[in-house]
């Protein structure tokens, strides 16, 4: 993106594909985690934000949620919840951490792992269809106003998808503010917004808050 280029907002349509991989206990979960496409790891970790309602107490990825609620293994659920895709660097690294966590847990279990008492875990993968929302920004004011208006899928696309699947640096918002507007301190603040905020709407609100502060002159 060149410094003079406006920021073009893209939202996305999503399509959930059911994969033929299933698990009934932690051992099967580990086995399938080794086999599923990396897209599926993304779907059940970072992309879980797409549908998560505001549940402050909920574990942040589908694996921990399932182990906690259906397998009812609180210890493993807590450990899986601590695998952080937002700091792992790549989805393959997330896969490795999940496998290592479950492997260690099974090794110290000393018995057969408990079976699900509810639903089996079904693996999905997510297909995204990017779509321009029609919003463009040439300055910080337009940028903030567009973030306030766009479909929430654009927040997902430019923060989560950009950063954790497509590997676009610190996410599109922070990159543009830093490179096109030259506001490096502000770019850092945007890049450090916690994706565990609870929902995409909360992530939107935090961006708006940071940008409004900047427009009020608190950040140069």
């Amino acid at each position: 993106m060149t410094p003079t280029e406006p920021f073009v907002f893209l939202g996305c349509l999503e399509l959930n594909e059911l994969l033929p991989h299933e698990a009934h206990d932690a051992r099967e979960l580990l086995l399938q985690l080794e086999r599923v496409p990396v897209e599926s790891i993304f779907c059940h970790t970072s992309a879980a934000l797409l549908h998560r309602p505001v549940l402050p107490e909920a574990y942040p990825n589908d694996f921990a949620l399932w182990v906690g609620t259906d397998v009812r293994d609180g210890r493993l659920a807590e450990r899986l919840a601590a695998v952080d895709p937002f700091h792992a660097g790549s989805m393959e690294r997330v896969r490795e951490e999940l496998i290592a966590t479950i492997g260690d847990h099974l090794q110290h279990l000393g018995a057969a792992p408990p079976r699900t008492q509810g639903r089996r875990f079904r693996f999905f993968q997510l297909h995204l269809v990017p779509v321009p929302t029609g919003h463009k920004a040439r300055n910080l004011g337009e940028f903030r106003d567009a973030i306030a208006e766009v479909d929430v899928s654009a927040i997902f696309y430019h923060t989560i998808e950009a950063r954790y699947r497509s590997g676009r640096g610190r996410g599109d918002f922070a990159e543009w503010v830093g490179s096109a507007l030259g506001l490096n301190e502000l770019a850092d603040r945007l890049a450090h917004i916690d994706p565990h905020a609870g929902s995409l709407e909360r992530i939107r609100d935090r961006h708006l808050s940071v940008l409004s502060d900047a427009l009020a002159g608190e950040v140069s």
Partner: protein
Amino acid sequence: MAQSSLLTLDDYRQVAPRGTVDLLRRIGERLRGRRFVHVSASRYGGQAVEVLNRVVPLLNDLGIETSWEIIIGTADFDQVVRALGKALAGTEQVITDAMLGRLRETCLDNARRLQLEADLVMVHDVTPLGLVESRSASGRWVWRCHQDLSSVQPQLWTALRPMAQRYDAAVFSVARFAAPLSIPRFIVYPSIDPLSERNREMTRAEQAVQLDRLRVPRDKPILLQVGPFERQHDPLGVVNAYRLVKKLHDVRLVLAGPPPAPGGDALGDVQEAASRDPDISVIVLPPDPHVELNALERAATIAIQKPLRAGFTIEVATAMWKGKPVIGTIAGGIPFQMVANVTGYTVETVEGAAFRIRHLLSNPELIGRMGAAGREHVRRNFLVTRHLSDYLAVLAHLTEHAGG
């Protein structure tokens, strides 16, 4: 507001999440000129058909040339379809080779008559499944199966599976309904139309007129279950839960459902159970009871869905859209619509249902909070605009990856 039949996508700006309509218009521009054909067995009755009645005009409004074809058959074909429906739902039926042959012949006859040249052909449910055997080389074909195939009669699935495999993809309503197939299987949740007669806003005066007509007094909190008077929907279990609640809370129970099909229904037992309690109303609904159900759901304090076996049960979403907490079982699609402990409670027993109802009645602030959370959850996940978005995603994904 425009009349329901004249609605355009812009009418949904008032109810859909912000930005949604603009995004749909943009993807419409990108897919403009593509041809999308839906095929089903009927234009009337059933939730899936209701959604098509809304989705097809909205797709055309977006510039995607969309038509809806209906497969027709003779009286004996209808008998075959009814038997197939029961066998798909897991009720053992005698399905003969002759019946399967009739299904194939009817599809073949219809394929000669129907306009099926399109970028995407979406075939709804099992009746027109065999149309795919006449597909041309161009265009992509998707089987949209609304039924739960988790208990399908194995011999029947063995016969149908080769036909399903000829599609480019299948779409199921939830993962647990999906049958094993080697083609891609996508999940698209059913949806509600927030501007339909069933779900539109309704004044208190209009509600009162409907409730008076149904003879439902508004003097006490109302517990409501909407569903067929069949044992698998457990209306007697709901009556028993109500009785446990009634010991501590002065409430009214309303059970509303369509006229039962001949044989095997529980209506007589429910009416008998209600006959000695003036606070139980058993309502056999008229045909197309959209306004009546809208009024009942708005008047309810708590909605209950306690089936033992169920399909998707979109009544959960319709009640949540009206700001009602839902007490539901984990059958069918119910747990996929609710967020347990946030928009309502999932329960497994009569006692569990009674406990949760009592808990809500004793903590009325929770009723408002859960109801509001449920409405927002539906706004984001179960409105027809999301359904439209999913179908556009199928169209874009399959036609832009054609041959790839």
